[in-house]
């Protein structure tokens, strides 16, 4: 009976590992949803590994901006970095000399939503029309769901309230009743052209439609408008330029080889240390690895070098915790416990150590997120992805598999590399 259960557990875990391994290489649309499952081999690569595009923009500071140009540029860099971080793991933005700013993204083009710019609300079309309301008149912008309508809520400051009231009055009295909202001084393509039928003197407004179809597009729209509040405009006449991966194929190949080598090395090491029991434990380690692979695919992870390091750190930690449990069993056996008893008493001895390790490392990792570094963020994020599998297997599955092993071997210490200490008798 015990043997049957053990075989069942090992077979189920093996099937899971093989199935997940297959999923690593395939991508498919999930039936009944808009979601595309991307296998690990098809995940989006970060800038340094997969390359992307870049463009350089001229910077212009609004007349109403209070502060130095340098401050304004720095604020623009921070804001663009924030916007990029919403979608990319390692997109870059940096200042060049001569009032220019460069953006690099791991994509085929740079979406205008990542570019900060002036906001201009006008009652008439075109570049020459008078700007009635601008970024300086806005207090805050945020996404809002009004009933079932997704939209953006704009609150004006004291001066802005009056200006917006005048603007809406003018527009509502005009023949086409259209307000023209321009961003980034792009007068050929208005950002939005809402219809205004009456004067608005509430001090706030709600914009819907204009391509806002869901929460995501609403938030994106709100972030774009909010960027206008800093008073810096970015514009360019240049087309996006392709940039190659700094690490490229060679490094990607290296990462693949090293990952496979690490897994193979850990299996060999486990076998050297604990022979058959080591191999059983590796089944649990591989189970955790595959859980992490599935989570990575489900969250559409972007592959970066630092992220890969975090992933491997998680793997090494999990492997060490698995081996730690086996060491404690070995120690218990060496001190005189019976073969079977050492497995359960070893678990009690190892449990809190494993729990402490997971808690303290995860706590430390979360605190690392204070640092505004994409490398640190990706390192931590990838480690956290491995955490679920690590916790499940190191705290429970490893023990189950190890105890299952005793169904096949109840006394042969040589098969598991256990040795009783000299002059120690078995405790009855």
């Amino acid at each position, binding site marked *: 009976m015990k043997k049957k259960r053990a075989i069942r557990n090992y077979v189920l875990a093996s099937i899971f590992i093989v199935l997940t391994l297959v999923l690593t290489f395939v991508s498919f649309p999930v039936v009944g949803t808009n979601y595309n499952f991307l296998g690990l081999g098809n995940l989006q690569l970060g800038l340094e590994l997969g390359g992307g595009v870049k463009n350089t923009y001229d910077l212009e500071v609004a007349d109403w901006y209070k502060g130095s140009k340098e401050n304004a540029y720095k604020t623009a860099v921070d804001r663009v970095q924030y916007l990029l971080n919403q979608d990319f793991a390692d997109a870059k933005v*940096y200042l060049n000399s001569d009032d220019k700013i460069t953006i690099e993204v791991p994509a085929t083009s740079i979406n205008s939503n990542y570019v900060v710019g002036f906001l201009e609300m006008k009652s008439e079309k075109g570049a020459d029309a008078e700007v009635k309301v601008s970024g300086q008149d806005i207090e805050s912008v945020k996404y809002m769901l009004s009933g079932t309508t997704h939209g953006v809520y704009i609150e004006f400051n004291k001066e802005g309230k009056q200006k917006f009231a005048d603007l809406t009055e003018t527009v509502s009295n005009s023949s086409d009743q259209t307000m023209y909202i321009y961003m980034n001084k792009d007068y050929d393509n208005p950002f939005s052209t809402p219809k205004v039928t009456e004067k608005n003197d509430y001090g706030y407004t709600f914009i819907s439609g204009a391509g806002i179809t869901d929460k995501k597009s609403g938030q994106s729209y709100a972030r774009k408008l909010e960027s206008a509040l800093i008073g810096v405009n970015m514009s360019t006449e240049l087309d996006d330029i392709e940039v190659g991966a700094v*690490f490229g194929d060679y490094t990607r*190949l290296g990462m693949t080889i*090293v990952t496979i080598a690490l897994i193979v090395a850990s299996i060999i090491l486990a076998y050297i*240390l604990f022979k058959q029991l080591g191999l059983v434990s590796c089944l649990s380690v591989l189970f955790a690895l595959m859980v992490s692979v599935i989570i990575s695919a489900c969250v559409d992870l972007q592959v970066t070098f630092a992220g890969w390091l975090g992933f491997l*750190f998680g793997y090494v930690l999990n*492997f060490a915790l698995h081996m730690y449990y086996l060491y404690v069993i070995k120690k218990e056996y060496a001190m005189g416990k019976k073969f079977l008893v050492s497995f359960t008493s070893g678990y009690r001895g190892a449990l809190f150590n494993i729990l402490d*390790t997971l808690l303290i490392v995860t706590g430390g990792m979360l605190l*690392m997120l*204070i640092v505004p570094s994409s490398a640190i963020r990706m390192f931590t994020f990838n480690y956290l992805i491995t955490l679920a599998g690590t916790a499940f297997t190191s705290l429970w599955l490893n023990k189950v598999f190890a105890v299952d092993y005793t169904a096949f071997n109840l006394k042969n210490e040589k098969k598991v590399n256990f040795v009783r200490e000299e002059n120690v008798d078995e405790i009855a």
Partner: protein
Amino acid sequence: MKSHNTNKIDYISKFKYWMLLPIVVLVVAIVFGAIWGFNLDYDFRNVTTFNVKFGTTVSQSEYKALETNLNTIMKEDGFADYRIDRVGEGAQNGLIVKIVNTDNKLDSQIDTLKSDIETKLYTMAQDSIESSVVINTSEKQDNIPSSIGQLVLLSSVAILCIIAFVFFYNWIRYNLVAGYTSSLALLGGLALHTALLLVTRIPLNLNFVVSYFVMTILSVLFATIINNSIKGTLKEDKFAKSSNADRVYYAVGKTKNILLIVTTMLIGLLLAIMFFGGLSFIYTILSIIVGIFVALFISTIFYTSLWSFWYKRAKDNRLKKRIEAENNKKDKKQDDKVLV
């Protein structure tokens, strides 16, 4: 008194000698720091970059030939502080040239270099090239150095938060001495890591903070594993008459294999990947490897020694004296037997 670890290295009684190593490193680092400061990499310097495009896909040997000849041109044109990295895929194959250009003094020299590359590079390398390479250079771009101040400030805040977290965790889970000793050990680790980066002159790029965090996390991890093992000795009867040092030796002996597995695997994988990237990549990996060694030293030698000195100090001193007296008595008896 019987020791529970027969294979121990008695590093605690020789603590002051062990500490000579970090003290010497710290002194040298202070001197190096005062004279040269940190060796900052290109991320923190004024650098002009441009791409040399090949207009086609080139093989590894062709890449190498073009790189070698580009290096020759750079040297002929008088450039010393520069870096060349491979970049791009397929028709985008090319090299990215980064030149340190403080205060844009080299602007005109770089323009000359660009035209030299366009006219000379293919001719110089053509014997080794079969692909239809057409050399072009992109517009040059001046990168303003990244600000190291904010990165260092926020990293320091994060590490201080981690130290506080470790202090409270160890205090609650183990004892107060474990709390402040592990925090102190982490501070020592930070100082030693900084000193080693100064002494080894590893250039620091934007990713150098990763090495500090790896060092911190590993120190915490190793100290936790050892702490749990020490905690076991505080409860067991067989350790009732053991000194703190003996408890530590037992705990380190019990956990050393796990610590070595983690350390060896991490260093092994870092060394294996190190040569698959450019120079900046190698510098990052080197600083992480230094951090791993610091973590091992700090958690096994520094932390455990401090803990053994401070945990129930008076009681431990009394116990040590008694053990010493018993040992002397035993020695004396043995001497007597020889005389008889």
